[in-house]
């Protein structure tokens, strides 16, 4: 048991060190993708399947695509900055060792028995009608955070779009794939996407009671949208499309409206009426899945870079 965990730990740290030491940017990014995979296993060992799923889908999968594409484009350019001097390296190493040491000491001296909200979270679980406590924290106890975080995603989309040249405003982001994609890729997209959509929807649906939920399901759906776009079976949408904008805000907007209606239904903002909580939560989550599934591919696609007429 211990050997496995130790080996995994060494591996994670080793790959992380490699992403830093790699001379070429592309190798570093490839190392990072491998690193994300390993982290998912660490999360399983920490009894956090919900997090493992999120890490696998977003931390490794979607982020991997984003970084691979970026490194490919940037590595074509000359690197302007001089390499760091030895003094800077030493100072940085000293600082890093200090921070890591302090952090390790702090973690190891955390009080025993550890404080926990697990019993409280479980006690309130009945009122929500959910079986998955992580989902309950996200959508019920700390729903305010989750709603705001969805607003952050909307801002991220606006931020990414805002770097577009003015003349392309309202147009489409660059295509994700080559003009004549490989037949194999098209085949993969055609077969994988339907399976992935079923799995994504299922993950959202079971998320009320099992590991999974709106984030994970939405991320899987987003990944399927991305592979379909990489195979050029569909194109990134025009950014001024009304339907697109509605899909992007659907999650936070429905969440916000339900939260605002809380005082009428249940006596408090963001409270759910007794006995009606679970359907309402699934209702909100459904829109969140939609928003996440649309937001993540758009964040990867980047700002509009062509007119949308074609």
């Amino acid at each position, binding site marked *: 048991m211990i050997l496995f965990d130790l080996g995994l730990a060494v591996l994670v740290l080793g790959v992380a060190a490699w992403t830093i030491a790699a001379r070429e940017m592309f190798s570093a990014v490839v190392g990072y993708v491998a690193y994300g995979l390993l982290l998912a296993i660490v999360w399983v060992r920490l009894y956090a399947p919900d997090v493992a799923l999120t890490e696998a889908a977003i931390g490794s999968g979607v982020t991997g695509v984003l970084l691979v594409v970026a490194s490919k484009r940037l590595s074509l350019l000359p690197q302007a900055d001089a390499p760091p001097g030895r003094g800077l390296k030493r100072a940085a190493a000293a600082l890093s060792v200090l921070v890591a040491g302090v952090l390790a000491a702090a973690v190891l001296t955390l009080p025993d028995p550890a404080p926990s909200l697990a019993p409280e979270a479980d006690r309130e679980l009945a009122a929500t009608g959910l079986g998955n406590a992580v989902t309950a924290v996200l959508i019920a106890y700390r729903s305010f955070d989750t709603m705001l975080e969805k607003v952050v995603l909307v801002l991220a989309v606006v931020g990414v779009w805002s770097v577009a040249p003015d003349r392309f405003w309202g147009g489409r982001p660059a295509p994700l794939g080559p003009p004549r994609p*490989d037949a*194999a*890729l098209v*085949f*993969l997209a055609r*077969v*994988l996407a339907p*399976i992935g959509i079923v*799995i994504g929807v299922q993950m959202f649906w079971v998320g009320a009671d099992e590991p999974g939920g709106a984030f994970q399901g939405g991320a899987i759906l987003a990944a399927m949208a991305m592979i379909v776009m990489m195979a050029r079976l569909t194109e990134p949408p025009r950014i001024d499309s009304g339907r697109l904008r509605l899909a992007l805000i659907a999650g936070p907007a429905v969440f916000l409206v339900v939260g605002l209606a809380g005082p009428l239904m249940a006596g408090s903002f963001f409270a759910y009426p007794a006995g009606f909580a679970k359907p309402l939560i699934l209702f909100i989550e459904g829109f969140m899945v939609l928003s996440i599934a649309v937001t993540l591919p758009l964040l990867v696609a980047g700002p509009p870079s062509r007119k949308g007429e074609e």
Partner: protein
Amino acid sequence: MSVLLGLFSLVAIGAGVFFFVAGTLALLRFPDSLSRLHALTKADNLGLGLVVLGLLPRAGSPLAALKLIVLWAIVQLSSATVAQLIGGALRRQDAAE
């Protein structure tokens, strides 16, 4: 779980491990990219297949078992495609050089 099933799991998983080792050796030892690619995809898919096979008796429910099989099928599909894509990229690069 019966002793027999347990034994079956062990044998299958053991064989799976063997194929992973073989695949990695191929990746490290084979002389050129294309032959590495060839050996790799075969080995690691067989490896995963055997591990999945070994875990089937331990799956909690029929649905969980089905998920394992679907998973294996997905990996088969993806890795076959990726092998082809990488092969194509190799050809293009070789042509360009």
